[in-house]
């Protein structure tokens, strides 16, 4: 059995806490350098269609608002009704849940999809990441890294029943 091919996509922008997805992607690029995983940065969820084919697993990281307190971490496995009902907004009315539903209807969604999100505070131009998010970013990076490494170890050892 080949190690599972994982695609990690950080969604975001250069502005304030909206950088969260990009920063996670950047940190994971270094951490996962020797793995089978591919890490990308996207500005809009629709860009997922450029990359998702042929992957067995998709991990998405994004900032969000409405989850709870600033820095709170959310983790969902798709399909996640909670996310669909949340009514995320996005450019051209194609927010992340819509893109994931569309990929699913087109038969292009990888079998396993994880969505990680951190509650942000401000997303203004020329602002950095809020201090409250720094620790959360590290937590999410550690968890995604450990998850991917465990996943690949399990599949390459033919011992997925223990994983």
């Amino acid at each position, binding site marked *: 059995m080949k190690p599972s091919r994982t695609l990690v996509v950080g969604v975001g922008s250069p502005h304030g806490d909206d950088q969260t997805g990009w920063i996670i992607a950047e940190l994971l690029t270094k951490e996962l350098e020797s793995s089978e995983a591919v890490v990308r940065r996207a*500005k809009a969820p629709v860009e997922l269609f450029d990359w998702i084919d042929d992957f067995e697993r998709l991990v998405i990281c994004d900032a969000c608002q409405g989850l709870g307190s600033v820095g709170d971490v959310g983790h969902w496995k798709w399909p996640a009704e909670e996310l669909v009902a949340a009514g995320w907004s996005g450019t*051209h*009315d*194609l927010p992340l849940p819509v893109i994931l539903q*569309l990929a699913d209807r087109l038969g*292009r969604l990888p079998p396993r999809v994880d969505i990680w999100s951190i509650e942000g505070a401000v997303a203004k131009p020329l602002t950095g990441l809020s201090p409250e998010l720094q620790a959360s970013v590290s937590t999410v990076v550690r968890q995604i890294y450990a998850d991917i490494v465990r996943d690949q170890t399990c599949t390459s050892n033919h011992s997925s029943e223990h994983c």
Partner: protein
Amino acid sequence: MTERTIKVRAMTRVEGEGGLYVKLNRDVVEDVRLEIYEPPRLFEALLRGRMLEDVPDITARICGICPVAYQMSSVHALEAALGVTTSPEIRRLRRLLYCGEWIESHALHIYLLNAPDFVGFDSGLDMASRFPAEVNRGLRMKKYGNRLLEILGGRAIHPVNVAVGGFYRAPRREALQQLIPDFEWGLQAAIETTRWVAGFAFPNFACDTQLVSLSHPDEYPMNEGHIATTAGESIPVGSYQYEFEERHVPHSTALHSVRRQTGDSYLVGPLARVSLNLDRLSPTARQTAGEVGITWPCFNPFQSIVARGLELIHAFEEGLDILRTYDPPRQPRIEYTYKAASGCAATEAPRGTIYQHYTIDEEGKVVQAVIIPPTSQNQAQIEIDLRAWVPRVIHETEAVLSRQCENLVRCYDPCISCSTHFLKLRIERT
């Protein structure tokens, strides 16, 4: 019931934030307002005092869908001010960059934003269940447009390789030529797309307006030419501000562009470009234009989707030609010296003509900047079209009427963020 007010508070499948208000008194349309309330973004003021080299990267930030047109318009205007003439190789690379942007923008608009209106679905998501092969085709074309932008522009959104005088780095031949098989597929996909959308049932509707676009004697207009109109005018770009003017309207944070002398609205975008430049489309696009059952020039905004399809064919075909014959320019960027001067340029964004004008000082700093986006130029015409269109659908339910109005607005592929600059619709019946 004599009075009706219909309000669509959040119009979908347009880029940016705004609203549409329609007030009806019996069968008479009393008021139509495209209410754009997205805050002004003040790019023109932001550019003042900046070095001219910063301008392409800042203007690219105006739009995530058509950054190339914004940055290239600024580059051309600044080069006009500096007296810079680029090489034929740089000029071809710039047209290739436009091909990439037209492909990614047109494919997105046709398949996910506009086609659902014509096949009876509320969204691209709903349409995907019934038309999976078509939606996948659109997404794949968009992917190839984005890939070209990545290779040539450094990244697909807000490219960073565009410079005043040319490019910071010319792409390697192999990097571009690896796209040839994808573009060969894309050309066929674009032909299938155009034939598919041409088969939609279009309302018999024509707007009484002028079509306006760039026109060039030797090529389909992208980044150069004079301004042509269906009134037979040929206006040098340098005279743009004498012929067109932006006006404030109370209900919109975006300015409305009209003809200066008459105050009349006009229409820019793919419908105008194809209508005014039919004989300069690429051979396959020209042939397909003759097969789709439309008489050109075409004044039916609902058929803009067919014009967009023809431009997809053109962009893939011209792109293929450039990819097959590409040799990296020996000098990717032409040197220049600063001088106090002014310059302007107009180029064709996917959704219509952009005009920009810059004044710079002897140290290369921007003194003044003027940016007129396509959606600003189309806003007045959209309102006039709605006044003519609403009586045709006035007896429909509120939901159907709202949807029909949204459909018409979406045909213009408005980019409200660019013009301020999303749309919410309110219809009042009295």
